């Protein structure tokens, strides 16, 4: 009896220790969500609502590994979280309960995208020189397809109704359709750690040569590539017909989307790796020195500057009153949009790693030690 009891306990532990695949049998199609990094191909981080500066913690869940400077994806009642241990977790949005996990050997550096009932994510393979784009149907719990991408992919995926665009670190842009076929690829042959952004069928990114590239997705050709800065690791931000990008020397440049010509530039002195965010009048940008600046969108004139003493490497959320800025120095700052004053800083046990995501009056953010935090917020 004792022996059987031991076996039962071992089996129970094994069973409990095993993670189950993501299967959401009753998933509904075409529901709302935050379906890719920045919510849309144009990467929108601005929400024209006023945020109350108190966040109510709704739940905390755990993953296996930590996170890159990316974000979670949200679909209907589910939160999809990529981690650096090669997993994509699915949590219930209300309870934080783990619905399932997809495991692979490698790291998921970028936010997954959700299209209908399918999840698309890229794994940087462990001990291999490739990355793999996986197509996973969470209604059936089955992998539909996969595509091998040479080299590392640390740039965010673009999802459109027409297909998926992936920019590898080697500077090759790929288009895949939703059934698993690669439609085309175009090489630029320059190191690229700048997540692409898309507007009106044109894709924009920077590269280590300091060039901005405007790629015509319809014609599958580069419309222009123009050197306007030093090495670029940050993503381009777009507002109206103007692009904004920071470089490794801390220079922020505004350029015309139509031809890449510079409109203005200004210096923040330290390396910029995250995407600028904008409201109608002001651009907000942080750098690795912990500086956060607000510039006039049209002239580049500085409106204010503050320093958090930390490292700013993840995109903030912008509300009408508050800039919600994650800081690697284990803090989440609430910054007054008008004055730059740090109204409040929430301290965490570990480094805040991802960009916060706002959806249905909830905010999701991930930190080291594998923590996923979900907060309820009040807006007006």
């Amino acid at each position, binding site marked *: 009896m004792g022996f059987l009891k031991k076996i039962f306990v071992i089996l129970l532990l094994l069973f409990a220790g095993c993670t189950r695949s993501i299967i959401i049998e009753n998933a509904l199609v075409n529901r709302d969500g935050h379906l890719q990094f920045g919510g849309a191909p144009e990467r929108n981080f601005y929400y024209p609502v006023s945020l109350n500066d108190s966040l109510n913690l709704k739940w905390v869940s755990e993953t296996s590994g*930590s996170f890159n400077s990316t974000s979670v994806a949200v679909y209907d009642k589910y939160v999809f979280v990529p981690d650096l*241990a090669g997993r994509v977790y699915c949590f219930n949005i209300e309870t934080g309960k783990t619905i399932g996990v997809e495991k692979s050997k490698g790291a998921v550096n970028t936010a997954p995208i959700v299209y209908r009932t399918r999840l698309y994510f890229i794994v940087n393979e*462990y*001990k291999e020189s490739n990355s793999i784009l996986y197509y996973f149907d969470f209604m059936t719990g089955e992998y539909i397809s996969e595509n091998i991408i040479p080299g*590392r992919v640390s740039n965010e995926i673009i999802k459109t109704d027409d297909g998926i665009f992936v920019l590898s670190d080697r500077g090759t842009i790929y288009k895949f359709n939703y059934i698993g076929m690669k439609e085309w690829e175009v090489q630029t042959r320059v190191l690229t750690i700048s997540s692409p952004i898309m507007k009106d069928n044109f894709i924009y990114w920077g590269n*280590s040569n300091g060039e901005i590239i405007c790629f015509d997705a319809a014609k599958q050709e580069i419309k222009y590539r123009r050197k306007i800065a030093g090495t670029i690791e940050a993503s381009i931000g777009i507002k109206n017909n103007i692009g904004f990008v920071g470089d490794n020397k801390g220079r922020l440049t505004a350029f015309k989307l139509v031809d890449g010509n510079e409109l203005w530039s200004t210096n923040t002195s*330290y390396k910029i790796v995250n995407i600028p965010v904008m409201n109608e009048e002001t651009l907000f940008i942080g*750098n690795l*020195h912990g500086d956060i600046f607000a510039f006039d969108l049209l002239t580049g004139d500085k409106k204010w500057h503050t320093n958090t003493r930390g490292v700013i490497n993840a995109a903030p959320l912008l509300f009408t009153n508050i800039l919600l800025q994650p800081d690697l120095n284990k803090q989440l700052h609430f910054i007054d949009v008008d004055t730059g004053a740090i109204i409040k800083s929430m301290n965490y046990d570990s*480094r805040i790693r991802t960009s916060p995501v706002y959806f249905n009056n909830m905010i999701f953010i991930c930190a080291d030690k594998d923590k996923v935090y979900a907060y309820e917020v009040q807006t007006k």
Partner: protein
Amino acid sequence: MLKFQSKYILILFLLLTQIGNAQFYFFGRNKVQYEKFDWKVLKTEHFNIYYYGEFEGLAEIGANYAEEAFDELKVKFNHIVVTRIPLIFYNTHIHFQQTNTISGFIPEGVGGFFEFLKGRVVIPYLSSLDQFRHVIRHELVHVFMTSKVINDFKDHRVIADRYPPLWFVEGLAEYWSTDWDTQAEMVMRDAVLNDIFVPLSEISRIYGSFLMYKEGQSFLEFAEVEYGEDKVLQILENMWRFSSFKDIIEFTLEEDLKTIDGKWLYWLRQKYFPLYKDKFPHHIKAKKITDFGFNFNPNVYVNDDNEKEIYFVSNRTGYSSVYKLKYDHNAREIKDPEIIIEGETQSEFEAFHLFQSSINVSKQGMMAFVTKSEGTDVLHLYSIVGEEMIKTFEWNNLITIRGPKFSDDGKKIVFNATDQKGFSDIFILDLDSENITRLTNDIYADKDPVFNKDATAVIFCSDRSEAPFKEKYNLFNLDIGESKLEYLTYVDADISTPHFNPDYTELYFNSDYDGTNNIWKLTEGENGSMGMEQKTFFATSVFDFAFVSEDTLVTSAFENFSFQFYSLPLNEAPDSLKKYVAFDFDLIDKKWVPESIVLDSEQDRLVYENEYTLDYAVSQLSTDPVYGTRGGALFTLSDLLGDDRFLFLVYNTAEVQSEILKNFNVAITRVNYSERTNFGYGIFHFAGRRYDLRESDQFFYERSFGGFFSLHYPFSSFQRLEASVTLANSDKEDADVAFFNRKALLLTNSISFVHDNSLWGPTGPIDGSRFRFLLGYTSDIKYSNVNYLSMIFDYRKYLRLGYRTALAARASVYVNHGKEARRYFAGGSWDLRGWPRWSVRGEKLWISSIELRYPFIDQLAIRFPFFGIGFASIRGALFFDAGSAWDDEYEETIGSIGTGIRINFFNVITFRYDVGKKIENDFTNLQPKLFYQFFFGWDF
């Protein structure tokens, strides 16, 4: 198997309780704590800064450098270290060498270190703020890199079983802490121009060398230029992805290593090959007059026979010593110099500062030289004519002394020295009155002073240069009478080692103005402005020089990764190369003052109190069908400065459940290194089956418990006194032999004198001597069952026959005499070779050995189709051993004769293989066949 495990835990514990440092082994040099430091703590935003004494001012400047570096490195690494970093400052290298944060000895060349276990950064102040800033930044790169890599492994749930190779670790620390400097340029020029360069694919060949550090720095610069600015950080960020660093490099740079190596070499050749257009190797323009060792500080003396002699410091034998070389420019063969004063074998000359200016000779035949002697540097006077030591000067408030220079009349010596604050200033010693006068007293680094002709002024180098060439070492003239300080030079370059020509009409010096150190002359330009004229045009550096005559110099120069002397005709450079640089003194701006950290409150300035943290812990649990389940653990705690340590050992040797309590083995020890006299004490309880070497290889059960106290007093680095007392209750039981049971309350006292100034080669000592004399007495103070006297006399002498060849001799006598005296044992690869290990046993034992140690194979490389193996420094030995062991009656003399080879692996272990014949029956016959013996261990 388990028996061995338990035994090895015990051995490990016993070794650890021997207070860690070398002095607590059978031989070994001493790491002497000459000072008792009154530690204080500055708490800044990211650092706890530990300092002592009068160093507060510089500690605050260092704190500011550290915070500045932190701000820069978090940007470079895209990472932030979220725990406070302990930063420990010492005001000089001499004090730094006394640190207890690591137990090993710190060589002269080490400028700081990052200690992984507790994340401590330990840095000496080396009399230069610029260097201080550089070392702080260098070590903080290590801190950030380690934190980043370990966090990346955690983030990816990858086992942290790898770390970047040393060339990358040190290369990155240099690359991200300083600009490409003169030293790096010199090393890489030499490597590329003289074909010493080693590609990445073979970089293990130069593991740990300075060349490897600089190649690492050069490679990262190349990678950034050739492959992109982000690649260096990407290499680190890809660490999780592959086990092999080669794979990481190839993945990140997207090319195979052979291609990368090829591009790097091409990049370097493009950079350095054009230098030969207008620069020369030393051996082309000058005549080499030494060919061995590292040779520095040439000084010329003309003796009574009008012969010229060069006095200098060199490490030709492995020890740094003062040498004399007869100078003859026309001699065809390079002559061997003669040792005048051998260093590093006695406490008065504990260390010559080989790479620093430390010796000078007067016209009158007096030599002044600096050595480390106990806790400070001292200045010695030696009569060349009388061949005798005249006097030694020592000043308690001066810790380091450098650059002694006689006045023309030989009555004064000017030098620079570092005081307790860390200030490096200029001093004059009047040899008649023996008084010293301090000429400067500020935070700026003043060095390399020389007198003018009539000793009314001192010319010296200083980093007090003001903007725009801030912190550059320029030449200054200090009028002693008027205390007036003036610039002599003002250039955007570092100047060092000024020397007047023999008649004091011209001033020459070294400067790195053209990229590497060459000799320049202070001169007046055509328009009357002051400037400097380049006199030598070498591709690699001149370190120092001396005038042999008005138109000939002896230089100490760097070429082929060696520092040799060259006889150099002056004024032979072609006119086309001549360069003149005018000084624009009008550029000089206001005085620079280093910034200090500003503390928010005095609460951030504390007196240090011991902060104990765990150093390491090991545990083991084993199960086997014979002995059952057994377990043990060993862990140690120490304070942040390593002065106070606790060791805990717990293990159990019970074979059945009912014996668990009875067989608990526990030992707790405290050792303290904070002062010169180190002490340790502890309590123990050991119980279990023991193997008896004494009689018939029997096992018996022994339970002993008690306590001990030990004291160690080092007289110097080379000699110490040890004393210990142990009180232990010892009960022995043997289930099979009832009469063997015995109880005892043992009191053991011992006192030892230990000497060790040996110099080690790859597999053991090759020079110097080692000696231990021990007297001890053990008695049972309760039952009188045990009562014996102990004596050990062990002397080992190593006679150098050549640079790498030595004759080693050993004479040892071991005596235990009395009731239940313990037996000594011998036999095996460590003493009586050929005889079975530990087979020669007795209460009395003598051993004598003579061994010729010689180089056998320097490099042995075996290449297989897919990989290769290399062995270095394989050494040979011819040996003769003799000895005997007995209890009451002397039995027979035995011995062995043979030959063997030894191979050292990674400086951790040496394997030995011997072949020979035993000498048996009182030396009357040789063993008929050969014996073959393989084991590990260093040479005796």
